[in-house]
């Protein structure tokens, strides 16, 4: 109960999949796993809607409404009278996180 993250917009159409495994390479949360004829959706609730799988799937077997999972950005968008879904990451461009983003920990990564 009270888990806001159990649902998301990820859609997978296995019959379209050509088993190229791209989605298993790009997903940072192991949402897809290798299967026999097509990949399997094994951890759908872990999806954070980054959009990497959909963008890299050559046959559009994945759809996801990717967006910014940042409350600060969404609340600011709402306060400016904009749609919350249109919220842009407030990082960079001289704002909060400058050259480093709200995700500075990722600097440890590649």
């Amino acid at each position, binding site marked *: 109960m009270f888990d*806001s993250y159990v649902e998301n917009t990820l859609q997978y159409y296995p019959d379209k999949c050509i088993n190229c495994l791209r989605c298993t390479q790009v997903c940072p949360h192991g949402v897809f796993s290798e299967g026999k004829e097509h990949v399997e959706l094994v951890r759908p609730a872990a999806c954070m809607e980054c959009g990497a799988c959909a963008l890299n799937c050559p046959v559009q077997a994945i759809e996801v409404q990717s967006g910014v*999972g940042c409350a600060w950005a969404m609340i600011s968008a709402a306060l400016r009278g904009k749609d919350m879904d249109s919220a842009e990451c407030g990082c960079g461009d001289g704002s909060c996180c400058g*050259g*480093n983003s709200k995700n500075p920990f990722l600097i440890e990564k590649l």
Partner: protein
Amino acid sequence: MENDKTADSTCSCAPKSDKLSFITFTHDIPACEILTITSTLTLKDRFGHFLARWGVNRMGYIVKPNLYKLGNPDADSPVFVSANYTMSFDALRSALAGIDCYILVLDTKGINVWCAAGKGTFGTEELVRRISWSGLSDIVQHRTIILPQLSAPGISAHEVQRRSGFRVEYGPVRANDLAEYLKTHKATPEMRRVHFSLWNRLVLTPMELVHAALPTLAVAIVLYFLAGPLAALAAITTVLTGTVLFPVLLPFIPTHDFSTKGLILGEIVAIPFALTFAADSVTSLWPNVLKALVFLLVMPAVTAYLALNFTGCTTFTSRTGVKKEIFRYVPFMAFIAGSGIVISILLGIFRLMKVI
């Protein structure tokens, strides 16, 4: 905005010009010349990283978008792609110690790989453009480029191949796994997952603190004069709880939503303050209870709000989930914070009227 950090000759990655005359250009960005870098990070580099973590000169902490060579690469050497944020670039070059290779740095406006991919600056368009601008197809024989896995939200690999002829290979999430990855060009499932370790969370706290420092200080000073030192201390404690304690304790607080985690933590931290006021023997019982209530209402609300905003610092929270959190909990946070403020105003009025 371009601040060519690499032009600093004291930097270990100081480039040595290696002009290539065979590259021709058809647009206005300056000609690409391969620059030489080393994989050694100097004390100065590390000090620069430390300052950047505290938000000093963050926007100026950039590397020139260019093609770099590390060691003595030849036409068969691997090509890596990075962002022009110095820390991303430094993480890559130091992880590649002993490997002869090229690094193509994109213009991500000084933003790290993950965020730049999200914004589209580390994107298909920029990559295709930089591949052709650098003359990469004349420099290497093969047609493979290795990208950070976390750049994938901005890159359409098949589109890059179609437009540039270069096949995109996604490397591991962590630069430290690169040497292992290069042995087989296959990443283990573990190498493909992001983690949010204690260290990952800790390095975020200086920036969070820097952002909150000024308003917190102002509130603490006002509270000091209006309600005394304990109230000022409560304000500082609340912000430290939301910006430092919360990230540190994140995985250990029960519940999944950030807001409820923040409410729980804020409530725990408020208890000592509430008890101190409840036990005040100078005023009578009911004003003491009301004063205690103010802490129990306001401190969790503020902590929960700071915790909710921490969603933007993680790679776990989806937009759908965050939106749900906002609709579920922000009205409640506003309600309890508002109630606490109303009670404290009433207490102030009663004190002026000498009722308490």
